[in-house]
């Protein structure tokens, strides 16, 4: 029972990291991305490389994952941030499919559809490996809290205020002499880099990764997790992400048969999303960017 709860909590914390990072891009900077799972996937495969091949401990691995994700995000963002609305969605969708295709088809490096197994558990300060559920939970919790703290601080920093201005009215921000293009690129990079934390935790916790965890559906789920909280505040995202993980367990608890649990779960999410758009649509995105 304890293990079961710890297991769910671990997944929920990982999802909170993914959603909080994506929240910055999707809600704050108003750019709907359907390519978040691509960064999640790249990070996971880089984690496998760092820990399995180079046997790096946790902090260097995290930094390398953030660096790689950030650089890739920068290269993608440079040409695409100028795109608005649907075109940006399409560009991120293209990126999502490109990454998935590479993960799936470049068998000699990524293991293709079979993925990579035997990813070692995190190593930290001489502790050889953090493999027990409880130990991992503590590590996970610490990292999540650090991330939440960073993003919380960011909201109230000067940079956060600039972002808020970008969210509310991009034109007047431009008029104050800020380069909104650079700000958008920086948001994309920060968001993708911190998704790498989620990747690291996911890969080392599962010890097995394959491309199917990083497909377009995962991108959609991350988007839903960001929007479910329907609040600009980070706590909304935390609740949304946790709910995404809890909902299947609730369905299992009320004894919906396993065969139909997955579609029912997604239908509920879809309906919730519709309600959120209906009741909170005005505050979801600022209207000027469309």
């Amino acid at each position, binding site marked *: 029972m304890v293990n079961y709860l710890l297991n769910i909590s671990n997944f929920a914390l990982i999802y909170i990291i993914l959603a909080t990072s994506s929240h910055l891009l999707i809600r704050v900077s108003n750019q*709907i991305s359907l390519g978040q799972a691509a960064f999640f996937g790249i990070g996971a495969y880089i984690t496998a490389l760092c820990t399995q091949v180079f046997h790096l401990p946790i902090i260097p691995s995290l930094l390398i994952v953030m660096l790689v994700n950030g650089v890739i995000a920068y290269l993608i963002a440079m*040409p695409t941030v100028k795109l608005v609305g649907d075109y940006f969605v399409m560009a991120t969708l293209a990126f999502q499919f490109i990454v998935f295709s590479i993960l799936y088809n470049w068998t000699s490096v990524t293991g293709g559809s079979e993925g990579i197994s035997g990813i070692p558990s995190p190593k930290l300060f001489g502790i050889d490996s953090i493999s027990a559920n409880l130990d991992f939970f503590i590590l996970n919790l610490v990292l999540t809290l650090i991330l939440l703290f960073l993003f919380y601080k960011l909201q109230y920093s000067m940079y956060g205020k600039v972002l808020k201005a970008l969210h509310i009215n991009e034109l007047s921000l431009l008029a104050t002499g800020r380069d909104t293009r650079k700000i958008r690129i920086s948001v994309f990079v920060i968001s993708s880099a911190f998704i790498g934390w989620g990747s690291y935790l996911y890969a080392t916790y599962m010890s097995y990764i394959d491309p199917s965890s990083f497909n377009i559906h995962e991108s959609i789920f991350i988007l839903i997790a960001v929007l479910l909280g329907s609040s600009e505040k980070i706590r909304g995202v935390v609740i949304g992400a946790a709910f995404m993980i809890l909902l299947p367990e609730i369905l299992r608890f009320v004894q919906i048969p396993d065969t139909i649990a997955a579609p029912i779960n997604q239908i509920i999410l879809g309906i919730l999303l519709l309600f959120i758009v209906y009741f909170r649509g*005005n505050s979801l995105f600022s209207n000027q960017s469309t």
Partner: protein
Amino acid sequence: MVLQYLINAIINGSIISILAIGFALVYNTTRIFHIAYAALYTLSGYVFYQFYELNNFSFLVALLISLAITSIVSLAIDLVVYRTLNKKSLGLHSIMIASIALFIIIINIIVLIWGNSPRLVLNEQLLNFNLFGVSGNRISILATYLLILIALMIFIKKGKFVTIIRSIRDNQTLAGLMGINIGNYRTGVFIISGIIVGIVGSIQAFDVGINPDVGLPVFIYAFIAIIIGGIGRIEGAIIGGYTLGFLQTIAEYFINSQWVVLSIFVILLLFLIYLPKGLLPEKRREL
């Protein structure tokens, strides 16, 4: 062998072109990133499968039922969801999210009804002839698609309907003031796009089978075709569609088929970045 590849290329190109036109109708009128369109494609295939394969109806009857259901659902999506949200004057971003939600809901209802595993239409002995080693079915499918494309061309080029739709897109208030009943035209657009997606979805289910995941890639290809060809002109959708169809087939023929998707999306990214208006940008006077 070459002939077969050629026919494949033309069929693929026609599918993408037709779907692109159906999507462009909605997109140009409402500016909604109508992802639920992909779910309609899947739905039409399953409805056709249900009536043709499981209930043993004739091809034509099954197709008509499928078209009816798809266009009704398409219209319902607009009436119940899009227009409600429009009335609340929500931004297009929010409506896109609603469309994604509808996509998820429809696809999962399909999974609930028909299950997750791929389904094949088996009793497809329709036409028992061969032409240069190509089966009669393939040829009649090809002919059907070309006929639909020609019909759509005539409909869009000659009819008044599309002119009015353009005026609605350009200035909804002004079009309303000119006495155009915008609601009725919107209804027409969603029914027609439902029929278009229903035809292709049903024939594809008949030809290559169906699974819950078929919709999204096809939708994405259709949107890519519009971006490559240029938004706002039917020739653009057709040129984009055939470019993709031939590219797909050539890539399958010369390089490994597993890299086809990758090459198409790389081309999309290049277009988005360097030629966002596509090959045939719409000529418009600036106001």
